[in-house]
Structure formats: structure tokens, C-alpha cells
């Protein structure tokens, strides 16, 4: 059988890869993809904890459902912002979006 540690190590790796994408990519859409990877890592952790430690209790599954809803809302609003910014500034490179820099 698979121990819980395998899932946790896998989710930590996925989270770190996503965080690297958020911090290092230039394209705003690619940054959103990194956020998706991080949210997926969190969901893997939540389902693994539910399965291994709290199985019949429903709190873990509800938490996963709420994270999914938050991820969908975040992606929709984020992509709308990117498209709006692209219309006004003709760029999606986050380094060029320095209008509010002091």
C-alpha cells in the first residue's frame, strides 16, 4: 500500500514547481497556470488527509469542493483582468505593467 508520505512529498513538489512558475515567468497567463498547479497540490493534500486520517467525515471533501470553487472564480477573474489589460496596454508581460510604480 502507498503510505501517506508519498502523497505529501508529491504535493510539496507540485506546489514548489507552481510557486517557481508564479515567481519566475514573465507572461501573466503563465503565472495563472502556476497558481493552478499550486491549488492542485493543495487539493491532493486535502484528499490524502481525508482518505488516510478522517475517512468517513465529510469536512475534508467540503474543503476540497470550496477550493475548487475558489480556483474557478480566481481563474475567471484573473483571465478577465489579463484580457482587459491586454486591450488597454497591448501587453501581458508583467514587467511592463509598472503604471502604479512610485
Amino acid at each position: 500500500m502507498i503510505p501517506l508520505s508519498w502523497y505529501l512529498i508529491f504535493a510539496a513538489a507540485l506546489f514548489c514547481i507552481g510557486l517557481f512558475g508564479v515567481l519566475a515567468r514573465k507572461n501573466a497567463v503563465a503565472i495563472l497556470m502556476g497558481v493552478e498547479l499550486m491549488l492542485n497540490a493543495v487539493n491532493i493534500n486535502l484528499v490524502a488527509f481525508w482518505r488516510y486520517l478522517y475517512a468517513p467525515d465529510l469536512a475534508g471533501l467540503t474543503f476540497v469542493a470550496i477550493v475548487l470553487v475558489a480556483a474557478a472564480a480566481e481563474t475567471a477573474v484573473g483571465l478577465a483582468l489579463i484580457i482587459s489589460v491586454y486591450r488597454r496596454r497591448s501587453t501581458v508581460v508583467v514587467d511592463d505593467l509598472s503604471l502604479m510604480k512610485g
Partner: protein
Amino acid sequence: MTLSQVFFLAVAAITLFAAVMVVSTRRIMHAALWLVLSLFGVAVLFALLQSGFFAVVQVVVYIGAIAILIIFAVMLTRQVMLDVGPQLNRGWWIPAVLVAGLYAALVGVLSTWSQFQAQAGPLAPEANDLSRFGQALVDLNAYVIPFEIASVLLLGALIGSIFVASERKG
């Protein structure tokens, strides 16, 4: 090494490779397609955790909706990023060192936890009873408040994204 362990390692390796390609590939459209593969690997892991419902939800919501939305956004914004030149910031090695340190710290902290090597017991038959899950979501003594807040959040995101992305004069 049992069959399920081999299967887990294969799926995890494919998912992590796809995730690395998402953050490192030069073409943004290829990154979106690698993201689909990575999300599908996560769905397989959900199925391996005996949560079939969330495996299906992962495919429907993430691959069917979010990944397609991302591909739309890539196609709507791609003239400027002609996939030439570096796609990473100049100082990209700083976050690389940072996340390597974070990963080591996470695994180090987790390995001191007493339940780290916990094995899965047999799953109770009512654990995957979807009608029980659905009733808990609308039960006043359970999760009706988070459920309603989530639906209001979705409605707000829907209206907000239409408002932000719609074309206005002036």
C-alpha cells in the same frame, strides 16, 4: 513494491514532468497543453485515493473549463508574446533557489510528523456516498454556510469577469 505503488510512481512522475514543462517551456500554448496533462495526472491520483467524485470533478471543472479558458486567453493575447526571447525573468535563479529551499524545509518538517508514514485503512462504505455529501452541503447543522458563500462567490466572479472583460467606450 506492489502494483499500486508502481502505478503511483508512474503517475506522479508524469504529473511532475508535465508541471516542470508548464513552468519552463518557451511556447505558452504548449505550456497550456502540458497543464492539461498535469491536471489529468492529479485526477488519476484522486481516483487512486478512492475519491472518484473528485476525480470526475477535476476532469470536468479543471480540464473542461479552466484549461479551456486558459487556452482562450492564450489565443486572445498572443500577438505580443511571439514565443521568442526568454520566457523567464532575468533573475530566475533566485526563485529556483527559494523553492528548492522551501521544498527541503517542507519535507523536513513533514518527516518529523508522527503520522507521516500512516497507512490507509479500509474505507468505510458510506465515505463515498454522494447523497450523504450532498445533504451535508445543504444541512443547517453542517456546511450550508460555506456552500452558500461559495455560490455567491461564483456569482460575483461571473458578473465581475463579464464587467472587467467587456469592451467599453471611453
